């Protein structure tokens, strides 16, 4: 039987919500427990209303929780907003001026006052963490050790102060301690806690990406800021471009010179990058772009989540050209996908787009640590050892499989000529009709091999009559929903896409044939449903769609699926 607790820490921006969440997560991680931590915040730096939603279990978690065991309210407003989410038996810890109500459902605690008693009011968040862990039945030593570690760099005085503050909170709540069923002990864990943004950065670095030109945009900035800690030890460069157009152009320019480069952005920035996408395609220069999706056209909801750029990513930029589109579902999958994206972009000389979203990019999840760095990486550049007036190097030689030998400029006698105009094999502008046909076909000829590179979707109970179908970050929510529906004796399966484009129509068509399909997506029109109708010939499908900018919860999918199953 798995033990499963969900907490919400809510208050205004700038009140240290995330600090408390991170502290609790760290204590859980050090005890070998699994977490799923989601941040919900507004596009503002101070004020407003933010929360951290933290689910803790002794088994691996695929999705966040939504029924609260503990609600931590840094202000009274938070209590009003979230009290209905408490499950029966749940408790609200409410920050107050002085000690007040204290019963099984509401516990008022003067965080600031206790922090002052401990030595400094800035430790109010640590007081709160102490109180929460007391209620969860955590031994105080576990929290003390985490605090000592965390504040070690800031000196013993600060560490001691925080331990004292934590003790204040802990003692104040000790008698409200409940048996959560967890085994609390310091345990060396083989698991890792990663966010999608962090995993994307690590995956890119592991793929030998050395250049990260970018323009700041939520929720993609985290991908690049997670590279920064490594710039001291690894020879990589992060450059803030003047705009997203420049960012993508710089990545293409670096790739032309043989250095793996990527940029990360969100939908609005990706709009600006589409001309770069076309240039990479036409010049057949490898390119990796992360699009961390957020909802809405234009500015939309900057700090919220959505999955409405699937069809845009598949079609972005004018005319037609092959590209890869991936949508990993977990941080570890994001790491692996980034490595593959660089490998495949270079192998086929095409753009690769990796779709994340705010939910995946920002959520921190415990997973089994399967991250590896390859002993060697395959590079796809030809030696530049020939080429003269009579027999020039042909950058765009009409190769049968569409992949012409790529060389680096200034690496030998062969002149590397690249242009965004339609070009002849040598790389010079050509308006010849037969050449246009040949070059279009050459680029398209890469597709059969590219399709073979695509991993099939993850299938869960594929023989079930009803299949939930999703892509990207909804993966965990769907998996948990399927499990729970199965527990209720419903015959239901799932098809979960990670590799989206190009698509193996026949193989996917077979999986989906003669089933009741329920598309589970975070957009309004069921973009994957429409894509599968176009590619795999599915005729009809039901939908569970959510486009309020907030992530799915398994509860919601379970409830909607029950209504839809015929």
């Amino acid at each position, binding site marked *: 039987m798995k033990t499963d607790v969900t907490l919400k820490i809510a208050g205004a921006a700038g009140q240290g919500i995330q600090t408390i969440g991170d502290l609790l997560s760290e204590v859980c991680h050090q005890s070998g427990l699994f977490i799923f931590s989601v941040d919900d915040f507004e596009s503002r730096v101070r004020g407003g209303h933010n929360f951290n939603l933290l689910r803790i279990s002794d088994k691996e978690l695929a999705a966040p929780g939504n029924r609260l065991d503990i609600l931590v309210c840094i202000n009274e407003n938070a209590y009003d907003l979230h009290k209905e989410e408490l499950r029966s038996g749940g408790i609200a810890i409410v920050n107050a001026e002085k000690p007040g109500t204290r019963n099984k459902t509401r516990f008022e605690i003067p965080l600031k006052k206790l922090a002052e008693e401990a030595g400094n009011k800035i430790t109010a968040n640590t007081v709160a963490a102490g109180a929460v862990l007391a209620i969860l039945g955590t031994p105080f030593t576990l929290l003390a050790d985490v605090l000592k570690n965390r504040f070690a760099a800031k000196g013993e005085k600060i560490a001691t102060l925080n331990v004292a503050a934590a003790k204040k909170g802990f003692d104040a709540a000790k008698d409200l301690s409940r048996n959560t069923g967890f085994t609390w002990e310091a345990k060396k864990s083989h698991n890792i806690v990663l966010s999608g943004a962090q995993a994307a950065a690590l995956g890119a670095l592991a793929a030998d990406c050395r*250049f990260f030109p970018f323009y700041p945009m939520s929720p993609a900035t985290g991908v690049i800021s997670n590279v920064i800690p490594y710039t001291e030890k690894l020879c990589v460069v992060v450059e803030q471009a003047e705009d997203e157009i420049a960012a993508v*152009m710089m990545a293409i320019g670096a790739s032309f010179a043989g250095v793996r480069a990527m940029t990360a952005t969100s939908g609005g920035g990706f709009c600006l990058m589409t001309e770069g996408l076309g240039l990479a395609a036409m*010049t057949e220069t490898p390119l990796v772009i992360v699009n961390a999706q957020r909802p809405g056209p234009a500015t939309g909801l900057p700090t919220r989540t959505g999955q409405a750029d699937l069809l845009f990513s598949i079609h972005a930029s004018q005319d037609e050209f092959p590209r890869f589109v991936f949508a990993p579902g977990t941080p570890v999958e994001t790491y692996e996908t980034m490595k593959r994206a660089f490998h495949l972009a270079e192998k086929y000389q095409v753009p690769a787009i990796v779709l994340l979203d705010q939910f995946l990019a920002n959520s921190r999840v415990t997973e089994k640590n399967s991250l590896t760095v390859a002993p*060697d990486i395959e590079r796809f550049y030809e030696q530049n050892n020939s080429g003269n007036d009579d027999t020039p190097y042909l950058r765009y030689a009409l190769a049968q499989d569409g992949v012409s030998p790529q060389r680096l400029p200034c690496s030998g006698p062969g*002149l*590397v*000529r690249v*242009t965004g105009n339609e070009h002849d094999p040598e790389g010079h502008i050509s308006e010849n009709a037969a050449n246009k046909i040949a070059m279009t076909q050459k680029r398209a000829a890469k597709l059969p091999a590219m399709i073979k590179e695509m991993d099939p979707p993850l299938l869960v109970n594929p023989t079930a009559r009803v299949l939930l179908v999703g892509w990207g970050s909804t993966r965990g929510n769907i998996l948990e929903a399927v499990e729970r529906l199965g527990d209720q004796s419903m015959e239901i399966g799932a098809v979960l896409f990670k590799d989206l484009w190009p698509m193996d129509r026949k193989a996917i068509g077979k999986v989906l044939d003669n089933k009741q399909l329920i598309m589970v997506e975070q957009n309004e029109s069921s973009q994957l449903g429409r894509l599968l109708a176009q590619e795999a010939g599915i005729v009809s499908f039901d939908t569970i769609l959510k486009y309020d900018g907030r992530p799915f919860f398994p509860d919601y999918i379970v409830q909607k699926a029950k209504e839809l199953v015929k």
Partner: protein
Amino acid sequence: MITSKEFNCNYENKWCPGCGNFQILAAMKNAFAQQQIPPEKLTLISGIGQAGKTPHFLKCNMFHGLHGRALPLATGTKIANNDLTVVVNCGDGDCYGEGGNHFLAAIRRNIDMTLLVHNNQIYGLTKGQASPTSSLGMVTKLQNSGTPSSQFSALVIALAAGAGFVARGLSAESGHLTELIVKAMNYKGFALVDILQPCVSFNKINTLSWYKERAYKLADTDHDPRDLAKAFNLAQEWEKSLPLGVLYEAAGTPFHERVPNLKANALASHNYDSKLLTDVLLQNL
């Protein structure tokens, strides 16, 4: 011994007869030959327009990119491999219009490369619309009551943005232009050479004789290119006189010396190091 002939290539030229671009091309070849840079050690990066086609018309490695985007492309190439010799060819609409933001950013970054702007004050390839450097009121087929925007003064703006090397050439003064290109390429940092040129097809105002009547060489004056205030004044001369030569030159720190990870070696020169990556990325997770 590399001569300018070695840069000749067989690819058919697509410019109009009489275009100033031919003289700019000749000056480029002479400048490369003077520096003994062989075609295979030269990377030209260009935008779109008649100027953007330049790299096709000589032997070199090249990236003929998109309208306005030559500078960020070249920036990426140089950040990846600072050992490459990169020269950028753009037109006035390309660099100062579509690519205006990149122009400012490139100056501020001070990447060690040379920008040649073929400035004929008109859009040639799209057949004669006003460009940012067209004079206020210039009548074109599209701006039939005269262009309503005032003229973009690239030299003034480059100086204001902090450019360390700002020069102006004239296509018809090919020998002088060769010298300017050599100086620009030898400058350690971002070097701008704005090259005035006639457009025989579409610019009937700023003709070769219009330029020649006004042009004079700074080398014949007592101008000291270290004098920024004087350079600003010179950059503002237009209707009556056009100074040619190096308006301003001052040593600065190029981008690759500002960025710690670019100081020692080019990014492209490092080998993949599995052990280092494992230690740095995975050890402390």
